[in-house]
């Protein structure tokens, strides 16, 4: 669990604004690294050549991916949400991937800040707030008709809106917790397997081969799975945000 511990860096323990502590921690450092790496990645796409190079092609395929996802889920009105959805998708994706880097070999310990529900919760609340703002901005109080799906029988009117309201209010929690749980579980699983390898090897050569070997092979497979999960969780977050935005934009 040590890998999830937040430690203030550079003696900023007591840095604060209005009584709130804002110490520059390892978490903040990796947020900054994520932002900078993402910015560098995007710089490669700013060459704006008519015939793109590889890097520009990679950047354009990411924007095109988000663009087509929003076009498919929201329609032509979805284009104005591309900056936000792109930012949140790339930020989470880069954070997840950077947190998986095997930098421990060089004595640096990556910190996956998406494994903290404080962070994923803020991101989820941000997405949910945008959904609420867009919904009430575009439809006013008519936005509440979201809780009455088409074809609801009159005699179920006392039940369906309640269920819909609850499922609507659960959205920010499921959005934030899903990412936090997936990232944390993956890292814990890797840590457990690596402790199997180390502890069994320390217990003796036979244990090391019988328990450590299979654990090591499994760990390699789980590493590949974690890279996949890093992409999938970022995608799910962006996809669900765009689906919720579709509700706000088009109601049902």
């Amino acid at each position, binding site marked *: 669990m040590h890998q999830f511990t*937040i430690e203030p860096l550079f003696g900023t323990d007591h840095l604060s604004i209005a009584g709130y502590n804002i*110490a520059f921690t390892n978490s*903040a450092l990796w947020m900054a690294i994520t932002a900078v790496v993402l910015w560098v990645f995007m710089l490669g796409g700013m060459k704006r050549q008519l015939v793109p190079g590889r890097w520009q092609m990679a950047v354009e395929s990411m924007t095109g991916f988000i663009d087509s996802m929003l076009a498919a889920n929201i329609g032509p009105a979805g284009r104005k949400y591309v900056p936000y959805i792109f930012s949140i998708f790339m930020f989470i994706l880069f954070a997840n991937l950077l947190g998986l880097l095997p930098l421990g070999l060089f004595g640096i310990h990556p910190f996956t800040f998406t494994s903290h529900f404080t962070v994923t919760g803020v991101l989820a609340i941000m997405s949910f707030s945008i959904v609420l703002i867009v919904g009430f901005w575009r439809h006013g109080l008519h936005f509440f008709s979201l809780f009455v799906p088409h074809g609801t029988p009159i005699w179920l009117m006392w039940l369906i809106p309640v269920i819909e309201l609850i499922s609507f209010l659960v959205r920010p929690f499921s959005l934030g917790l899903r990412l936090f749980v997936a990232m944390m579980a993956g890292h814990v699983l890797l840590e457990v397997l690596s402790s199997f390898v180390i502890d069994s090897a320390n217990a003796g050569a036979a244990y090391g081969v019988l328990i450590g070997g299979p654990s090591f092979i499994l760990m390699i497979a789980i590493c590949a799975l974690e890279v996949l999960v890093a992409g999938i969780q970022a995608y799910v977050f962006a996809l669900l945000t765009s689906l919720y935005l579709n509700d706000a934009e088009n109601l049902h």
Partner: protein
Amino acid sequence: MPQIAQLAATYSSQIFWLLLTFGFVFFVIGLGMVPKIQGTVDRRDRQIADDLAAAERARQEADAQDEAYRAKAEASRAEALKLTQAAKADATAESDKTLAKADAESAEALSAAEARIAAATAQALGEIESVAAEAAQDMVAKLSGAKVNAADAAKAVKAALANG
């Protein structure tokens, strides 16, 4: 679990730095860079669409020109056909006329020849009559010694020839 154990101590720092870094990502990258990249992609798509449209236009133009050329070739062929047919008709009429003239000439020659033959026959017949009359005169003179004048002999011969 540090996420819960450190929550009270670190939540403000976490939220502050997250808003700062994500704000940078959203405002600088999301709002600053993404629209430009989309613009590049849109411009390229538009250029490709324009090029395709231009190619399509050129193709239609070529098709129209081909159509016009074909129509023109068709017209020329029809014209040529008409000319050859006229020439053929002319030649036929010409040869018909020549043929008719030749026919008339040969018919004329034929009738002239027939007339000559008829004249010759008549003459020959006349000669036969006079020779026969003379012969009859001589035969009568020799056999009976009676003199038969030429007119009687001729009359007798004519009668014999007409009966024979």
